[in-house]
C-alpha cells in the first residue's frame, strides 16, 4: 500500500496497557506480566511507599509556597505512578533527564529534601550534583532535555556502555521541534534512550488535543521508534512498560517511546488557576483512578498492607517533609559577590573585571551602609 491514513497507522493503538484496575484488581497480560514477575508484596509495598512519600512531599511543596517560603511549585499530584514506576525501573547508572515536574523521579533517584525546595525558593537554579544521582538538573525549557538525553545515549554507545538515557517530558512538549528532532537523532543513531511522555492531559490551560488529535504514542513509530501507551496511574504497568523499554534500549535495539496516560490533579503550578479552563467534573472523574488508592486497595485485598504499615510510611513521610521544611527555613542566601560564581569553568578576564568592580561597590556600601556620597 502506498497511502497511510491516521486510521491505518493508529487503529492498532486502541488500548492502554494496564495491570491494576482503578479499583485495585490485578489483571493479567501475557506481554507485560513477565516484566513484573518479581514484584512481590515487599516490592509493591516499596512502590506504594515511594508514591505516598512523593505525594506528601509534593503537598508540602504546595504548602510551603502558600506560606511564602518558596516562590513557586509545580505539583505532581496524580502523576506519582509514572514517576515512581519508571524511575524505579532504571538502574542507578542509567542517566535521567527530568522536566520541572518530576519531583517523584528526584526522590527515587535519591534527591535530598533540600534538593526539592531550594531551587523553587530561588536560592540556586539547581541543587544536587547531577553525577551523584545520575539525574540532570530539572529542565524548564520545554523539550530541551530530550536532545541532551539522546546525546548522552550516543555517548554511551561510543563508550560501549550499557546504560540507558531517559527523557521525561509532557504532552505539550511533543509539539516542540526539539522533541521531534530528538526522535530523529535517536532513531538515526539507534541510541539507547527511552522517551517517557507523561500525558497529563494539560499543558497549562491547553488540553492535549491542541497538541495532538490522536494518541501521542502514535507519533513515535513514524520516526522508527516503537512505542507503548500505558496507564500512567498504574505503577505496576508503568514498571513493566519501563522495564520492557529499558531492556529494548539496553540490548542495542534502539530507542523506545512510552506515553503514560495520567492526569494533573492540581494546578499547572501554584501560580495557575485551573478553574478558568476546566471543570471539577473532569478532576473528580480522574480522582477515581488515583494511583495510590488503587495500589492500596490491591495490597489490602491481598493482606499485604495494613494500617500499621501505612502509619509507618506516614511517619517516614513526616520526617522527610519536616526535613524539607527545615531546609527551606534554614536556607541561607549566598553572599552577593557569589552571584558571579560559576559562569565560566576557566579564568575569564570579563568576570575578573566585574568581580573587581562589584567588590568595590559592595565595599563602598559596607563602610556606611549607603552610597559613598550620601
Amino acid at each position: 500500500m502506498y497511502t497511510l491514513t491516521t486510521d491505518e497507522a493508529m487503529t492498532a493503538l486502541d488500548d492502554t496497557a494496564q495491570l491494576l484496575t482503578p479499583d485495585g484488581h490485578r489483571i493479567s497480560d501475557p506481554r507485560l506480566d513477565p516484566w513484573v514477575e518479581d514484584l512481590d508484596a515487599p516490592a509493591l509495598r516499596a512502590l506504594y511507599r515511594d508514591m505516598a512519600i512523593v505525594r506528601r512531599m509534593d503537598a508540602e511543596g504546595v504548602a510551603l509556597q502558600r506560606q511564602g517560603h518558596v516562590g513557586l511549585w509545580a505539583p505532581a499530584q496524580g502523576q506519582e505512578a509514572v514517576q515512581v514506576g519508571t524511575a524505579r525501573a532504571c538502574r542507578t547508572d542509567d542517566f535521567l533527564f527530568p522536566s520541572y515536574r518530576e519531583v517523584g523521579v528526584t526522590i527515587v533517584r535519591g534527591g535530598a529534601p533540600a534538593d526539592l525546595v531550594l531551587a523553587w525558593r530561588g536560592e540556586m537554579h539547581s541543587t544536587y550534583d547531577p553525577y551523584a544521582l545520575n539525574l540532570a538538573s530539572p529542565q524548564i525549557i520545554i523539550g530541551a532535555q530530550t536532545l541532551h538525553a539522546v546525546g548522552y545515549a550516543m555517548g554511551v554507545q561510543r563508550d560501549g556502555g550499557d546504560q540507558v538515557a531517559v527523557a521525561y517530558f509532557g504532552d505539550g512538549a511533543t509539539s516542540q521541534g526539539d522533541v521531534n528532532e530528538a526522535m530523529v537523532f535517536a532513531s538515526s543513531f539507534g541510541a539507547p534512550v527511552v522517551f517517557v511522555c507523561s500525558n497529563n492531559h494539560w499543558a497549562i490551560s491547553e488540553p492535549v488535543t491542541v497538541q495532538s488529535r490522536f494518541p501521542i504514542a502514535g507519533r513515535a513509530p513514524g520516526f522508527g521508534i516503537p512505542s507503548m501507551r500505558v496507564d500512567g496511574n498504574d505503577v505496576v504497568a508503568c514498571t513493566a512498560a519501563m522495564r520492557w523499554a529499558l531492556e529494548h534500549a539496553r540490548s542495542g535495539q534502539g530507542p523506545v517511546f512510552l506515553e503514560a496516560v495520567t492526569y494533573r490533579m492540581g494546578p499547572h503550578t501554584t501560580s495557575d488557576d485551573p478553574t478558568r479552563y476546566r471543570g471539577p467534573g473532569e478532576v473528580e472523574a480522574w480522582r477515581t483512578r488515583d494511583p495510590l488508592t488503587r495500589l492500596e486497595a490491591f495490597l489490602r485485598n491481598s493482606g499485604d498492607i495494613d494500617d500499621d504499615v501505612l502509619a509507618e510510611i506516614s511517619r517516614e513521610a513526616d520526617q522527610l517533609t519536616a526535613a524539607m521544611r527545615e531546609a527551606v527555613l534554614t536556607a541561607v542566601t549566598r553572599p552577593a559577590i557569589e552571584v558571579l560564581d560559576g559562569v565560566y569553568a576557566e579564568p575569564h578576564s570579563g568576570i575578573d573585571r566585574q568581580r573587581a568592580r562589584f567588590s568595590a561597590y559592595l565595599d563602598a556600601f559596607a563602610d556606611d551602609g549607603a552610597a559613598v556620597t550620601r
Partner: protein
Amino acid sequence: MTQLTMGKALTAGLRHAMADDDRVLVMGEDIGRLGGVFRITDGLLDEFGPKRVVDTPLAESGIVGTAVGLAMRGFRPVVEIQFDGFVYPAFDQIVCQVAKLHYRTQGRVTVPLTIRIPWAGGVGAAEHHSESPEAYFVHTAGLRVVAVSNPQDAYTVLQQAIACDDPVVFFEPKRLYHTKGEVDLDADIADAAPMGLARVVRPGTDATIVTYGAQVTTALDAAQAAEDEGISLEVIDLRSLSPVDYRTVSASVRKTGRLVVTHEAGGEAGVAAEIIASVTEQCFHYLEAAPARVTGLDIPYPPAKLEKHHIPDLDRVLDAVDRVLDRPNSLTGVEL
C-alpha cells in the same frame, strides 16, 4: 482618563486594535480560555472568538512561523511569547524570516507582525522567566523594537505597533504589570507621538539618564533622590530601542554633558553600549566625562534570591551619576 494597571491597559489596547481592524488576531500559548499567564488577553476569546484568539500548540517557532504565513495572507498577527526566556526557539524564524522578508522581496511582502514579550526580572521567578533579550533584536536589522514603561504607552504604543507595517518586537516589563497610571482610552493613536520617539520624562541639567522599561521608574527615583542633593538629572525614556531617537538623546547630552545609560540586560554588546558609542560620536565635544553604563551583570540570569544584585537599583544608578559628575564613587581608584 482612566486609572488602569499596565496589564489592563495592554488588554484595552489589544481589544481596541482588534475591534478597529478585523485582520488583527492574537495567538500564543494559553491566551484563550486562560487569558494568558498574565491575563493580558483576558476576555478576548469571548469577545472575538477562536478564529481571532488562537491557542496554539506549544512551539514558539511554530507560532512565529505560522504568524508569518498569516501575515502573507493579509492578517496582522499579534503573537504572545509566554515569557522572555521562551523566545529563543523562535529566533530563527524571527531573524531569518520576520526581519528579512520585506528586504528579500524588495518590499513586496510586508510582515505586520507584533511579537509581545512579557519581559525582564524583579518578580522572583524561576530560571528563564526573567530574561532581557532585547539587544539580540536591536542588533537585527529589519525589526523594530519597543519597550513600554507606563500604562498610557502600553495602551498607545501597542496599537501603534499593531498598525505598523513592519514587524515589531514589543517588550512588556513584567514587574510593572500591576502598576497603575492614567490612560486616555479615547486618544487616537494618530495624535500620539510616533512610535519611534523617545520622551524626556523628567527634565534636568546636570546629567542625562537614558533608560527604558521598568528601569524608567528606577531612574526617576534616582533623579528624585539626587534632587535632594541639589543634582538635577534629566531622565529619558527611550520607548523605541530600534530605531533609537538620537535626536532627543543627543540634544539632552549636549545640554548636560554627562550621560548614564541603565538597563537590566547585561552590558556586553548591549543597548547601553550602542547608545554610548553613538552619543560619544555625536556629542564628543560636549562630553565632560566618560558616559557610564549601569547594567545587569554579564552572567546568566541569577536565581531569584540573588537577582537584586543583578538588576541595577537606585543606589547603583546614583553611584554612576557620581561617576559622570566626577564625584567620589565606588570606582574611585579602581582600575577600569
